[in-house]
């Protein structure tokens, strides 16, 4: 165990910090859940790519730096520290990208990874369906084989920013009559094809955060199949596991939020109120604990241990912590918390967004089931 950074790691951090300080927009960009904001965030991704910071953990050949997870965490720390824009390409870089590297063909890697790193193609995830939310295996959207094409018909929902994205990825039922986890295939689909309708869905704050995607006999080549036909569930779970486990919400996001909360406490709270001081300290400790836990996890991954159902513990921990951080901020803000514009907008927006945390990427109820069933080996209930 050595919790000091190496000189090389320090140098990497310094390089990242210098670049970010030189390049991060002085003014925060408008929300990437708006058309204008999305375009500006895509530009920012181009800039990141030019500096080779858009996918640091990827191999150099695909536009990354071949950085290991420790370096990735260091970069994330610097990224959040710098107040850089949100990652509009996150579904690609952190979710689809690693999956393509794991199961993709050489052609797919060359075709999709560089364009993903460069944000020439921005990807939307298309997992859920109106009747397949917590019960993802209830997926009904079909892809039938016709010559060299898949012909897709069905409907997906909760696709983040699909209104402005270029491609989407998801799993579709390719075996007629198959049930649950079987007979599903992971397919990559351009969103500009005939037969595709994208219906924006306004989220809690009124912005168009996600969308419904309707597929009406949409033709995509079989070459867009990721992984084996009929094995889509496994491919998706590998991706989701990695997402829940590490990449979806890196610790820096919360350590920075906790720092901002402490700053808010210093400037707006009564220091004699030990109840509030205790609560702020608790979330700071949680953020720090999540950081430490993540460093331990990625060290294990570097040493060859795999991350399994433990990922569900992380997802519950960070999502509940995020809600708590924002609850406290709003408590400190008092009457200002009722206002969604103005100087404290970020906290109020953050509160609304935090409430989605226990729901997306698998509700926390589902995660608790997974922990009970796979970690504690309790008998299946559902």
């Amino acid at each position, binding site marked *: 165990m050595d919790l000091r950074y190496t000189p090389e790691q320090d140098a990497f951090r310094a390089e990242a910090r210098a670049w970010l300080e030189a390049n991060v927009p002085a003014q925060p960009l408008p929300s990437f859940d708006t058309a204008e904001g999305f375009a500006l965030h895509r530009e920012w991704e181009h800039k990141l790519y030019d500096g080779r910071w858009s996918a640091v953990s990827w191999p150099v050949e695909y536009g990354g730096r071949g950085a290991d997870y420790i370096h990735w965490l260091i970069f994330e720390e610097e990224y959040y520290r710098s107040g850089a824009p949100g990652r509009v390409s996150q579904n690609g870089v952190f979710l689809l990208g690693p999956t393509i590297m794991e199961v993709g063909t050489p052609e797919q890697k060359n075709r999709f990874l560089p364009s993903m790193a460069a944000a020439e193609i921005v990807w939307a995830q298309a997992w*859920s369906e109106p*009747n397949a*939310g*917590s*019960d993802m295996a*209830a997926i009904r959207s079909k892809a039938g084989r016709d010559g060299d094409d898949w012909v897709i018909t069905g409907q997906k*929902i*909760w696709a983040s920013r699909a209104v402005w994205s270029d491609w989407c990825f998801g799993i579709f039922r390719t075996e007629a009559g198959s049930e649950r986890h079987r007979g599903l295939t992971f397919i990559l689909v351009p969103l500009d094809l005939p037969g595709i309708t994208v219906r924006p*869905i*306004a*989220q*809690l704050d*009124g912005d168009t955060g996600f969308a419904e995607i309707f597929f009406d006999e949409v033709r995509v080549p079989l070459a867009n199949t990721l992984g084996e036909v009929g094995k889509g569930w496994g491919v998706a779970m590998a991706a989701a596991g990695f997402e829940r486990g590490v990449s979806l919400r890196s610790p820096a996001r919360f350590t920075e939020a906790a720092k901002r909360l402490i700053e808010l406490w210093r400037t707006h709270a009564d220091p004699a*109120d030990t*109840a*509030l001081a205790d609560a702020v300290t608790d979330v700071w400790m949680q953020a720090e604990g999540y950081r430490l836990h993540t460093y331990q996890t990625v060290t294990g991954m570097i040493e060859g241990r795999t991350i399994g159902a433990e990922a569900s513990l992380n997802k519950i921990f960070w999502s509940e912590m995020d809600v708590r951080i924002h609850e406290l901020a*709003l*408590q400190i803000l*008092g*009457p*200002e*918390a*009722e*206002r*969604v*514009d*103005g100087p404290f907008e970020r906290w*109020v927006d953050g509160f609304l967004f935090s*409430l*989605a945390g*226990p*729901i*997306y990427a698998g*509700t*926390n*109820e589902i995660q*608790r*089931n997974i922990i009970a069933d796979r970690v504690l080996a309790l008998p299946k209930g*559902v």
Partner: protein
Amino acid sequence: MRFSFTDDQRAFALGLRDLLGVHCTPALVRATWDSGHGHDPALWARLGEMGVLSMMVPESAGGLGGSEVDAILLFEELGRACVPGPVIETAAVGLPALAAAGWPAEGIVAYWAAREPYVAHAHVADGILTSDGWLTGYELTEVHAIDGGRRLFEVAGGENVRIDGFELSLAFDRGAVATAAYLVGLSEAMIAVAADYARQREQFGKPIGSFQAVKHLLADALIKVEFAKAPTYRAAWSLANNEPTASCDVSMAKAFANEAAYLASRATMQVHGGIGYTWEADLQLFMKKAWALMRAWGDTSFHRRRVSAAVLLPT
């Protein structure tokens, strides 16, 4: 010792529930958000005709001469329907205060207890009841409020005419207990909507309401709401009877109602899943009202500390 409402009090509340069920649907509430008005004149007129707005105004001043006890179930119903506009400011605070001061008890009233940076509903009010008077002729600058049915404004200038025979602390306590009741009704409405959704929404081949995780989320919320009721009714009674403990009782009620409403909002959103996070779902109208009112008229910390001051010090 008799802790219950009269048949008349119950009947009046049920009558209001029926009226609101027809004339204050979620669609109407949403319309007041979309129009940016945050208030519905037609609904307001109905509430006036029914006597809801003047319940606490003495008969001598043209009201129904009811007490806080007569009014408390009405605020619960107003909350159940998520009624937009300054109903609390007018019915629980403004008109009774104006009447007490011998002024005409009529119109739409906003309330500004110095402490707050913003005044709710000021754009539709005939005037603002301040800590010591009646303010008119002011300049308003709107800020973007989270609750479209409770718009917020910065107020500048205007003429503040002193009002005598009006107690600021009583006005605040009346607003707080009315808000507690409003939050109780609002919370019950959220839980009802979630239970309804849980009965219909199926996953894993069953209604999600059949899963213990969902059952227990809603059961815990319901417990908080149920136990916020008696303290709220008691606080109304204490105010109506000028009990020395009235302010402490009000604070206990508001603290309970704040917590209940927040838990109800969290539980119902969680039960709804993604749908609960959308603008389209009516749930958001109720949740945002809860998040606004749990801080208005004193947040939980403020009221808990008022209770602490009363009960922790050696007696």
